[in-house]
């Protein structure tokens, strides 16, 4: 009995250690990958066209989903905010409430989550398929650096696009809030914008900007690294199923990371 128990415990510790080592190794690999990509991003040669193409893919082509989600987020904020503020007779603060929630919190986070779903998954799948079909090996054998050629344009695009998409999200959200708060629920239009004008200052904008920059980097990092290291995946990164599994795990990891970093950045910057 004691022997069996000892064996069970031994196996348990072995498994825990094995998992810990694996995740530590993965984290180390991804960390070095991030350093390599950032280093290549800031050192020449700089190539404009591939970065513009990626900005078009990650940024411009996400605009519709951002307009849509931004608009409805602002509308629901105004709706909920109006009924809550009315209890305290403070409907005049609706503009400030909508704008501050969007600029400090919801704009960067929701825009980032939309980009994770739309572009992050596509990046992991693209790089993963390239890894599986030896296209990345082919690049290396041609003495073309995959980090510089494939990843750097995506990193630049993430860092450039996310703040811009967040700004669009905020703006559309504020207009959505105006639509519901002012045009449907009857809050005074001047009060709506005056409250916003007097309560939003540069620190709020800065917080949103820093968050969106960090999220842009994090999303592209996780999406590219997951695809690039597909062959190291413990669950088996082979074939179409491997790509689909890795894409799913990249989306989950990127979403969770965005929310964790949102808290961390808020805690640091408040």
């Amino acid at each position, binding site marked *: 009995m004691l022997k069996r128990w000892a064996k069970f415990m031994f196996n348990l510790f072995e498994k825990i250690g094995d998992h810990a080592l694996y995740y530590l190794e993965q984290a180390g690999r991804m960390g070095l990958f991030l350093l390599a990509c950032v280093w290549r991003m800031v050192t020449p040669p700089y190539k404009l066209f591939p970065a513009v193409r990626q900005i078009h893919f990650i940024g411009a082509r996400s605009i519709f989903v951002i307009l849509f989600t931004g608009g409805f987020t602002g509308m629901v904020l105004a709706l909920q905010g109006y009924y809550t503020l009315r209890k305290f007779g403070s409907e005049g603060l609706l503009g400030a409430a909508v704008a501050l929630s969007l600029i400090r919190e919801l704009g960067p986070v929701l825009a980032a989550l939309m980009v994770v779903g739309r572009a992050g998954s596509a990046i992991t799948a*693209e790089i993963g*398929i*390239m890894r599986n*079909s*030896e*296209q990345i*090996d*082919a690049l*290396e*054998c*041609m*003495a*073309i*650096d995959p980090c510089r*050629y494939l990843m750097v344009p995506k990193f630049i695009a993430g860092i450039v696009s996310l703040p811009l998409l967040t700004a669009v999200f905020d703006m559309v959200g504020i207009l959505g809030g105006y639509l519901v708060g002012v045009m449907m629920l009857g809050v005074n239009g001047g009060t709506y914008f005056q409250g916003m004008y007097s309560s939003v200052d540069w620190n709020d904008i800065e917080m949103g900007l820093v968050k969106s920059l960090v999220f842009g980097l994090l999303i592209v990092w996780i999406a590219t690294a997951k695809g690039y290291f597909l062959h190291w995946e413990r669950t088996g990164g082979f074939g179409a199923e491997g790509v689909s599994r890795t894409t799913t795990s990249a989306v989950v990891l990127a979403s969770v990371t965005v929310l964790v970093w949102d808290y961390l950045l808020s805690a640091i910057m408040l």
Partner: protein
Amino acid sequence: MAAKQEKTFSPARIAIELIDVKKSFGNQQVLSGVNLQVEEGTTTVIVGASGQGKSVILKHMLGLMRPDSGQIKVFDQDIASASRRQLKEIRKDFGVLFQNVALFDSMTIYDNVALPLRERTEASEEEIRANVEEKLEMMDLHGVHEKFPAQISGGMQKRVGLARALVLDPKIVFFDEPTTGLDVLKSNEIYRLFHDTQARLRYTAVIVSHDVPKIFKLSDRVALLAEGVIQSSISPEEFQRSDNPLIRHFVETTMGPIYSSEKEETAPL
């Protein structure tokens, strides 16, 4: 298929040298002390049964895998211990035709062949166009420039892969099973193109193949990988007459009784 012609230059310099290369995956030792020399300007074919580690040797030569121990010298530079930057420099002499071709599937044929020129040289678009056109012409590829890899046949993909491998006039070209999945006609076409381009560009070729005995006609040296080591690196004629039991077994199982009887008929001794 054109027969191998006598080379007009005398090979002397060693292009690639593997010294006691060992590699294990878990408990399985795949390479247990591989030694091989490839002379500059020659064609070496690595043969062996499936699963013996032929592709593993090739990946070591390309620097895609690092050995557990041993040295892999390319023009006297050890790639087993080279840094990423050194490896990149060494690879500038390489051209590779992968088994599954590994064309960039979201790029057109033209862009695939032009990519090494765009990324590795400062050539203008006109120079790139001229070079790409020349290489595609050399491969008898016409009217496919704007097509994507999935829109052309397997044989054409191999030819595009060869054009891409040769576009920067490499010193060493590696072929991983260059005729896998192709019918006899298309295989012969690939061999003819290989023969013509090598005669023209004078590159060193390392071919991993199981297309025995056809591949012998193109090779200067045949190396058999069996039991984790290179059993020999000798001329095709010597290979077919070798007394090494592993080579004999390979020759008999791959070429069948036809070759055995031929050997008996033609053997002078």
